[in-house]
């Protein structure tokens, strides 16, 4: 069985296959019968160790639109709080016959560990500060829909890159698909290894903005901040927040993206978030189509069409 653990594992052809498949599947959302029989009889488990209503219901909607049976597992109130290990939970799922496991976990690498223990396909729905491949796929899908292409697109990813799995997955995937990514963040919010990533780095948002086709704002992950990364929220907002003035300096056809949830007023002003050039709600709708595509390509046939083999 193959898994989707990292956006970096997808080849260009596989990534394009996911986006093309998602485009066809997006039509299902417009029909009166929003259902396909494709995954009938298959079981998908949503294994969520961290709270994430948005991602969980997106995966749930995607699996249900393909007629799969969905089991939701939330760590809160489960045996995990009694001390059960990830491996034992995995073996339990195995015994229940899960064909696919969607895992969200607070520790980086948890999805890869899980892939060694279960027979079904593992989909990484966010592991710690490591990766969130389906988010990157839906972002790429949204860019391609809005801008008509990905090749040569200039994308600025702005904000808390250090704690952002979204940023890492996006850099890897967009690089594969031929876009040019620039990370913009204060030096304290960039990971040490950023020099090895296939992207450019800048500390100055105002310099990058006029040269960007897409500006992706990241959430400042206060819950992961156990240190002083910037003096005050006000100062962060002044240097890295996307307000009306900065928005006006972007090219006329440039779009603004945000993976959500937004902190209005800090990283993005309400005015920008609600502008027609912001794709924030589109990203949510596209998320269902992209996750349908990933589930179909991993579970739809006798062999997966995408993803990486794990031992």
């Amino acid at each position, binding site marked *: 069985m193959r898994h989707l653990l990292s956006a970096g594992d997808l080849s260009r052809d596989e990534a394009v*296959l996911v986006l*093309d*498949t998602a485009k*066809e*599947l997006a*039509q299902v959302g417009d*029909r*009166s*019968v929003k*259902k*396909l*029989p*494709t995954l009938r009889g298959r079981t998908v488990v949503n294994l969520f160790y961290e709270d994430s209503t948005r991602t969980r219901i997106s995966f749930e909607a995607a699996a249900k639109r*393909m007629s799969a049976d969905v089991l939701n597992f939330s760590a809160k109130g489960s045996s995990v709080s009694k001390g059960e290990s990830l491996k034992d939970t995995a073996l339990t799922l195995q015994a229940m016959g899960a064909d696919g496991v969607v895992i969200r976990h607070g520790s980086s690498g948890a999805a890869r560990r899980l892939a060694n223990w279960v027979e079904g396909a593992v989909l990484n729905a966010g592991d710690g500060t490591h990766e969130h491949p389906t988010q990157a796929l839906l972002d790429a899908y949204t860019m391609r829909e809005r801008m008509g292409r990905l090749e040569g697109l200039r994308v600025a990813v702005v904000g808390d890159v250090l704690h952002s799995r979204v940023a890492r997955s996006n850099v890897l995937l967009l690089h594969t698909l031929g876009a040019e990514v620039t990370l913009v963040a204060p030096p304290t919010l960039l990971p040490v290894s950023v020099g090895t990533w296939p992207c450019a780095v800048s500390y100055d948002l105002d310099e990058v903005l006029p040269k960007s086709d897409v500006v992706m704002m990241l959430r400042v992950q206060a819950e992961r901040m156990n240190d002083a990364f910037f003096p005050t929220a006000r100062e962060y907002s002044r240097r890295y927040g996307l307000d009306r003035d900065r928005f006006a300096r972007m090219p006329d056809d440039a779009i603004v993206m945000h993976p959500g949830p937004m902190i209005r007023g800090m990283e993005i002003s309400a005015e920008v978030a609600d502008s027609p050039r912001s794709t924030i709600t589109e990203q949510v709708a596209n998320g269902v189509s992209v996750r349908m595509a990933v589930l*179909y*390509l*991993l*579970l*739809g*046939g*006798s*062999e*997966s*069409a995408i993803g990486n083999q794990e031992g």
Partner: protein
Amino acid sequence: MCAQKRTGGGEKVGGPPARRSAEDARAVLEGPEINRALTRIAHEVLERTKGGADITLLGIPSRGVPLAHRLARRIEQVEDRAVPRGSLDITMYRDDLRLAPARALGRTDIPAEGIDGRVVVLVDDVLFSGRTVRAALDALNDLGRPRAVQLATLVDRGHRELPIRADYVGKNLPTSLREKVTVLLEETDGRDAVLLGPAGPRIGHAAPAADGAEVDR
């Protein structure tokens, strides 16, 4: 065992399976005959639907789609009226999804007026087991409620596995299960022809005709 009839040149057998069967194949329909068959089907559709005022042609990818377009153009020439046409991908409705690796989807493109209350004519290149048509009927069911559904196919090669039959057939082509029918069209392959040849070696547990677009899926 069927005779290995070769095309004029009689090329050497021994290339990779896909090539070999193409070289060994015999053309049973050529371009002008395909054109005549489509023209006849267009007239039959008009006769049966009494002028075809509310017909919608839906081609099944891949080669059913250009055939549907050609039929629609012929009907338009006769009746001098636009005929809605589109494509209906059945991949997600196949009953053998789990027998093969996950495959790429084709395009589904339903005309803007939808299919509710219309006479939908499904168009495909080869009618074989009938499973493609069953899947197409399921897909239509999720898209709306046509008044009637009819089936047009360029070639009917027999060997039905379901109680399905075509309303309009370009050519009835009695075949053995060991033979392979390949439809080539100008739009996708650069020439119009229907080829009949020995099937390549069977792969795995797949049904004799489960390899490629040229067979009924």
